[in-house]
């Protein structure tokens, strides 16, 4: 009986190679890609003008096409919140819950194979490749806590690990799997060349915003100021965009850094109060925080004006709009750079 495996496809090289190794053994493979809301590459491309000149593709889809497999993209934004907010195994160097994330994704894949009649799960994990989630001692933790147990096969490191059920049952030949370990990428690059893969993604620093220090600082600030650790999808999308400036606990400004970000933030006009320069070219700013008093509104406008073409003018006119799109004109003198304390800037 032909066996079927599902591969966790991140879009990187390791999962591409792991799936290819199993395909070569006559196993039918399909891919799963999980959307958490924290993905880096596609969103940065979509929002910022300067990134639009580069070719844009979804790497997971690209990998699936190279392998000739189906790809199921699964929205786990809601369920994933518990992983980010309360990771059982803690965070990495930023707010990245890498070990809990891997356990969660394998658990979801295990659920998926039971629902779809697949036999086992494969991942591109390599022992020692990443500082936390791919340490040798965590490999069995992921298998156990996800519930996948011996149905989780890591083709790139399999020969350094206990045999799994696909190997013991003879569904795959363990001798044709690899025994990679460590941080070197050379063996994977050599294998990619052997398979004829040349245009694969090599994300430096990972593909998740939670591994990014600046992003994590913004997320922590959001939690601290709301007094609770929670988020919605729009919150985590907006943390990827613009300058974030919090002059007081009453409000935060999200100020577009360029035209693409202004266009993206415009989509939030009915959810946030906004400020836009009128007399000079300048950015759109969202105000997070309600009921600004007149002094706070003037300060918000003076900060926004600082990032406009009128930054050196005596007076800049701005338009303040509420969520219902009723607006008022405000005239301010832009703040000078030294009038914006470093502690206001969340980064």
């Amino acid at each position: 009986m032909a066996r079927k495996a599902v591969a966790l496809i991140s879009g990187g090289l390791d999962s591409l190679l792991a799936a290819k190794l199993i395909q070569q053994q006559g196993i039918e493979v399909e891919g799963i890609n999980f959307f958490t809301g924290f993905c880096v590459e596609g969103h940065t491309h979509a929002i910022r003008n300067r990134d639009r000149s580069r070719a844009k593709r979804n790497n997971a889809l690209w990998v699936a096409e190279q392998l000739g497999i189906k790809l199921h993209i699964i929205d786990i934004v809601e369920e994933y919140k518990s992983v980010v907010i309360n990771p059982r195994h803690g965070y990495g160097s930023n707010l990245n819950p890498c070990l809990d994330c891997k356990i969660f994704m394998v658990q979801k894949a295990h659920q998926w194979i039971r629902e779809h009649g697949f036999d086992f799960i494969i991942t591109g994990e390599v022992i020692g490749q990443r500082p936390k989630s791919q340490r040798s001692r965590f490999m069995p933790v992921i298998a156990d806590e996800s519930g996948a147990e011996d149905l989780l096969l890591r083709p790139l490191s399999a020969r350094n690990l206990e045999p799994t059920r696909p190997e013991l049952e003879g569904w795959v030949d363990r001798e044709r799997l690899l025994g990679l370990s460590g941080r070197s990428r050379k063996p994977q690059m050599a294998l990619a060349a052997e398979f004829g893969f040349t245009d694969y993604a090599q994300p430096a620093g990972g593909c998740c915003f939670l591994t990014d220090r600046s992003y994590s600082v913004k997320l922590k600030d959001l939690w601290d100021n709301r007094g609770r650790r929670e988020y919605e999808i729009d919150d985590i999308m907006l943390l990827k965009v613009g300058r974030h400036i919090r002059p007081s606990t009453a409000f935060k400004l999200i100020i577009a850094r360029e035209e693409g970000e202004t266009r993206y933030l415009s989509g939030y006009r009915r959810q946030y109060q906004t400020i836009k320069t009128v007399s000079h070219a300048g950015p759109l700013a969202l105000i997070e925080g309600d009921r600004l008093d007149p002094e706070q509104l003037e300060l918000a406008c003076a900060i926004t004006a600082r990032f406009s073409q009128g930054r050196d003018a005596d007076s800049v006119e701005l338009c303040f709009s509420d969520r219902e799109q009723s607006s008022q004109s405000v005239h301010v003198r832009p703040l000078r750079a030294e009038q914006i304390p470093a502690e206001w800037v969340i980064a």
Partner: protein
Amino acid sequence: MSDVVEVDARRLLCPMPVIRLQDRIESLPPGSEVRITCTDPGTQNDIPTWCRINGHSVLSSCQQQDDYVFLVRKGTDGD
């Protein structure tokens, strides 16, 4: 000819438009047509790629101001 099912994926960033299309198409019979409207330029690559690997066809695609509009037919082998 059956009605075209409309999917509005404007303001969503990839891969959300693909997920919206995938989830909508799943419950439709083979041969059904779905028109999806997106604003993320990345959908110009992602929607056709997703269709190719999952056995669906992009019957047409066009840009209307800031919108990218795709007409997709569900394949016989697709989910």
